[in-house]
């Protein structure tokens, strides 16, 4: 098939617009990586250097000296994993209840979740803080990092929709056989919902990994800081290694980029369906 000249010209124009735009968009990420391999003299030298150097290990040592970044990253990994597992478990159970049964109060529950969905998080952050840190004295604990953010209703809506779209005869057949409801949920419904659960888990993990405001407020002691909070505490200090900060930024970003490339489909599914949150 031969393409017309007009069409070829249009294709060329398309790439002539997209290529520089894409390069501009990639530039900050590329420079984040480049700066993480330079010492501060290199970063602030007058010349423009766009290629990586060899100071990554030194920068990491500087970062570790400025803030205990290994410990902070360990906390972040654990929190994100526990949070993701708990949130998927709790919200898929709730989603199943709302999808599968008629019960007293169902309408109120759904209306409350949907009605408050778009309320800004800032509305709850003060009372959450007062309750957790002041009333219960639970600041700087694992509980404070993991449990309050579990209110997120993304999973409820996400899984409810998935369960509703499944053929109900499947579950009814199991019920006729006398299979208990929790076994139907666990062994029939959940395995069928795997793509949804994967997309959900990825988005929740990302949320938790990048979460900044709540951990900043509630876990301010250096020993219980998450990685974003620890890194953020260095920004704005006068005597600090910028190469180290960039190294921390790369450590926070690179795993997510790799995950994104590997699981792009799930990421995109999670974003488009979960756009409400």
């Amino acid at each position: 098939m031969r393409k017309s000249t007009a069409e070829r010209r249009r294709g060329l124009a398309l790439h002539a617009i997209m290529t520089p735009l894409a390069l501009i968009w990639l530039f900050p990420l590329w420079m984040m990586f480049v700066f993480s391999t330079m010492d501060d003299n290199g970063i602030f030298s007058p010349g423009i250097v766009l290629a990586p150097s060899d100071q990554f290990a030194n920068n990491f040592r500087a970062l570790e000296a400025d803030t205990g970044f290994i410990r902070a990253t360990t906390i972040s990994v654990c929190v994100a994993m526990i949070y993701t597992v708990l949130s998927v478990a709790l919200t898929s159970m709730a989603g199943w209840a709302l999808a599968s049964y008629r019960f007293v109060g169902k309408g109120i529950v759904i209306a409350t979740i949907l009605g408050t969905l778009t309320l800004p998080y800032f509305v709850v952050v003060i009372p959450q803080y007062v309750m957790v840190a002041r009333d219960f004295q639970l600041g700087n604990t694992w509980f404070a990092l993991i449990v309050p953010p579990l209110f997120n209703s993304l999973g409820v809506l996400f899984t409810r929709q998935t369960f509703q779209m499944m053929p109900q005869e499947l579950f009814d057949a199991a019920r006729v056989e006398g299979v208990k409801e929790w076994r139907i949920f666990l062994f029939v419904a959940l395995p069928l919902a795997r793509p949804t659960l994967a997309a959900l888990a990825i988005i929740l993990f990302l949320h938790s990994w990048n979460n900044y405001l709540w951990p900043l407020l509630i876990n301010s002691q250096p020993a219980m800081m998450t990685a974003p909070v620890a890194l953020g505490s260095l920004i704005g200090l006068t005597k600090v290694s910028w190469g180290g900060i960039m190294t921390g930024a790369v450590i926070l970003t690179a795993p997510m980029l790799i995950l994104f490339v590997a699981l792009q489909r799930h990421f995109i599914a999670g974003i488009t369906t979960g756009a409400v949150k």
Partner: protein
Amino acid sequence: MRLRTRTAYAFLTPYMLIFLAFWIWPIINSFYLSFLNTRSANWTFNPQVTWGRLLVDPAFSNALWNTLIILIIQVPIMIALAIVLASLLNSPMLKARGLFRFAFFAPVVVGEVAYAAMFRLMFNEFGIVNKFGVSAGLPSVSWFSDPTAAMAVIIIAVTWRWAGYNAIIILAGLQSIPDDVYEAATLDGVSKLRQFFFITLPLLKPVILLCVVLSVIGTMQLFAEPFLITNRGGPGQETETLGLFLYRMGFNTFNFGYASAIAYTIAALAIAISLLNLWLGKERTQ
């Protein structure tokens, strides 16, 4: 579907306990707190020092003004860019699609702190942006001591971070438009550009409105960018947003009552602007 209240509650209760404790109760409590003077030993009812102060506090109107400026400039630029990006990414003529998608979508997974650090360093007085500018013959800009320049950095940063996110949503909208609509138009000799304006955009309107609403809600809560990139809303308070102002009142001076009033104002504004958008969107179709 049979009436199974007991079973349903068993599945629902664990989540609902957390939902009520850490979402519904704080929503109510926040409203209550917004009428209290929380700076006295016993928290007493005194809306004069919360809602009353809001009306006369120049720091509040400054933060509100800054937030609205970002909203008015940044959201339209970003949404327009996202529509263009999504349309171009959807073009069948595009080669190396995966690479382009990666370039624009990657910022979505970058955390606030990492990207804030990066933008702060890039726009440093001796940073890479000024190096490029000077080598192109432009004067060196001290981005963070000039209010307008500092605002521009925030707008650029937020656009970089969120344009791809919106493009993903719009792209999904584009892909749900059936091909035969375009085939019919092409047969009738309608140009691609006219197809875009008279078929694509009207069909995309619900998706674009969703993006606008999400962006408005997000911008009303802008916090990490002025906190980290422009060093706590600097220069002075010139880039302080409502989100940052709330943080300062709530967690630097621990004035929970006043901060709650600010929080409810943010929510009310976000909802009002979103509804206005939805309403305007509807008006134009009729």
